[in-house]
């Protein structure tokens, strides 16, 4: 499931909805990304998220589909906020549910790595030292690349 929204999200409510009263889920992993009050060398007072409506949903759906193809997931969720955010605010939530913990962990990490390189969002930061667009990090490309070299946990023995 995918949502782009300006408002905040509530972790408990989202996970309850994700579980949907199912009793065959053994493992739920969530990743929450939050606005930090400083970048590599400067203080951040606010962050504004721009995105490409239409393409964003398309890319996130593609990424989510890819995760479901690689791991035995029972459910997944990606929520990404847009608009102006303050330090401490939530930016993104990724959640994965599986019978087994390694599948849930790997799929959540995979979703974040792909989201960071493929989903059309851009961050604009403002602070006392000025304002500017956040530069993409080369490490995010490397983080995505590791999923090409590495096999999924699908073949590994089951473990909750």
């Amino acid at each position: 499931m995918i949502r782009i929204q300006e408002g905040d999200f509530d972790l408990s409510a989202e996970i309850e909805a994700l579980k949907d009263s199912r009793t065959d889920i053994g493992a739920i992993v969530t990743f929450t990304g939050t606005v930090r009050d400083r970048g590599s060398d400067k203080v951040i007072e606010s962050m504004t998220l721009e995105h490409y409506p239409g393409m964003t949903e398309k890319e996130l759906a593609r990424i989510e589909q890819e995760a479901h193809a690689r791991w035995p997931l029972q459910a997944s969720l990606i929520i990404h906020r847009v608009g102006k955010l303050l330090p401490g605010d939530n930016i993104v939530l990724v959640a994965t549910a599986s019978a087994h913990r390694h599948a849930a962990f790997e799929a959540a990490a995979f979703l974040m790595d792909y989201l960071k390189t493929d989903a059309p969002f851009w961050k604009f930061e403002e602070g006392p030292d000025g304002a500017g667009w956040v530069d993409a990090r080369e490490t995010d490309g490397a983080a995505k690349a590791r999923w090409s070299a590495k096999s999924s946990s699908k073949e590994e023995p089951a473990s909750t």
Partner: protein
Amino acid sequence: MRLLYFAWVREKTGISSEEIDLPAHIETVGDLLRWQKTRGEEFAAAFEKDRVIRAAIDQTHARHDAAIAGAREIAFFPPVTGG
């Protein structure tokens, strides 16, 4: 054809989208990037670092050598920084 601009590409061109008829000699994303530089001061500045600019054809990531024939919507933007 519809052209879209995001983040600092949008800021530098000064527009977020436009409907435009492209010259016939433009066949690839790369051709289109080079042509953008000829469209005045703002576009020259926006597309100066054309190597780092990413493109999407009809909302799908496209390489600079991708053909644009048949495209309805082409977007230009910096490397993404969400998440």
